[in-house]
């Protein structure tokens, strides 16, 4: 099975600060890959780089057959890659309905978008009840659902989700994961999910990468890492001398 996404030796710099270095990873069609790491590890930067929001200083990113480095986010999105960013970024003054339709405007065939819209509302009944609400008035969990639904409206092959559990009650987070995995089952969606903690993700992910200080510290199949010991040491950097990377120029 060929890789849907390949990240090869990517470095990202913000001025003098190196946010990512030598990051390489690959995601196969249909996989659920989780990237875990502490706050500031570079997880969001990695997803932004893949989605075209940040241009790497070095390295290659291939999505399907396309090299997406230096390509604008809207073009990447049209290739079938969608990002649900950290903090959800729903359009608060637009209605729930408008937020959803934005995602569908990518497609010329309106009929498809209409069908997607109906299908997603079945998955997210809470959103249907609030279609004409300004999205800013939804609860945090509803906003997260809207953000996911809106991204799925673009009909992605690959969905990147940045910290879906941030600031939400565990019960809501479970629901969101259920929906994400359901989408994967039904639509063959490939998922890359960022999380700060590995608790929930070990159950759901096929493979896991641990990112710290801008570097990949550990990579492996979720089944092999199930006891959590290797993840913990990679996450906190015990026994590793290179704890200050990413700050040095």
């Amino acid at each position, binding site marked *: 099975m060929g890789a849907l996404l390949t990240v090869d030796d990517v470095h990202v710099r913000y001025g003098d600060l190196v946010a990512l270095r030598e990051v390489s990873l690959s995601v196969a069609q249909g996989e659920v890959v989780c990237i875990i790491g502490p706050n500031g590890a570079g997880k969001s930067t990695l997803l932004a780089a893949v989605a075209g929001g940040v241009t790497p200083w070095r390295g290659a990113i291939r999505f399907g057959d396309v090299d997406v480095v230096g390509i604008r986010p*809207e073009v990447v999105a049209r290739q079938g890659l969608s990002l649900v960013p950290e903090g959800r970024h729903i*359009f*608060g003054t*637009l209605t729930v309905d408008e937020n959803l339709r934005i995602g569908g405007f990518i497609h010329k065939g309106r009929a498809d978008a209409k069908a997607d819209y109906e299908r997603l509302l079945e998955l997210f009944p809470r959103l249907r009840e609030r279609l004409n609400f300004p999205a800013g008035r939804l609860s945090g969990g509803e906003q997260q659902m809207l953000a996911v639904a*809106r991204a799925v409206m673009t009909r992605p092959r690959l969905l990147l989700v940045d910290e879906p559990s941030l600031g939400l009650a565990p019960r809501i987070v479970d629901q969101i994961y259920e929906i994400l995995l359901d989408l994967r089952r039904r639509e063959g969606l490939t998922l890359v999910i960022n999380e700060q903690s590995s608790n929930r993700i070990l159950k759901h992910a096929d493979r896991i990468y641990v990112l710290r200080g801008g570097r990949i510290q550990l990579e492996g199949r979720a089944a092999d890492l199930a006891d959590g010991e290797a993840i913990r040491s990679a996450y906190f950097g015990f026994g590793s001398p290179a704890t200050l990377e990413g700050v040095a120029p």
Partner: protein
Amino acid sequence: MIAFLQNLIDAVSLGSIYALTALGIGLLFGILRLINFAHGDYITIGAYALIVPSADVTARLMIGELPLVVMTPLICLIVVVVALLSDVLVFRPLRRASSPTLMIASFAVSYIIQNGVMMFYGARPKAVDLWSGANTQILIGDLRVPMLQLIILVVTLVLMAALTLFLRKTPYGIQMRAAAEDFRMATYLGVRGNLVIGLAFAISGILAAAVSLLYTTQSGSLSHTMGLPLALFAFVAVVVGGMGSLVGAVVGGFAIGIIVTMLQAYLPPELRAFRDAFAFAFVILVLLVRPAGLVPSRTTFERV
């Protein structure tokens, strides 16, 4: 009472002009965080496009002589092209620049356009008689209402309604509102950034062209700096209304129109010359009381 109503009509008509100008400026600010100084010069270009290009003191109408249904779209087209050119040549290369940089860049664009107009048309103001029929007066009770003022008000209301419908009901309108709220997120969802921005420039060009026609009909003269006071009052209107809010821009425009007209009417004669100083001082006072403007925008994250 009649005198007050008469003044009020003047105020609303002047306010309409400011509101239309402020709307064009506010629209671009919403999406690009650009305060476009060149907006006033778009208005100037629309006005000069009416006449034969020459440095002669007397102006001869060219496009301005055509029937209204031909002239209006033609003037709009010219102004839209200029607005889009300024985007492509100057603002597009500055997409990642900060808000102050954009503001200075638009100041440069404004300077270039103004001096360009002066180069081709000469520095002296020119008299034009665009549509003298519009200056007849209608009697409503004891009120004498110049027909032009009614036209200005109607055109303003129609344009505002059209813009509202566009923003609420059309896919591109929804995309523009999304981009205004969170540009990066909109592009992550496949919204074409340059297209939406170009559209905003085009709409702001149409609004400017409308002001060109209305204002030139009213004033009957052209000068290469004619757009400047309009733009300056409109900037202030945008700030007074609340930056980032289109409703605010309109409210601010009408507020400034009313302030200026009422000062003109009710200041003691010896102070009337200082009308603009009073108007701007009043604006500073308003901002002291409401630093976020009359209609504070919930969406715009303004930097400190």
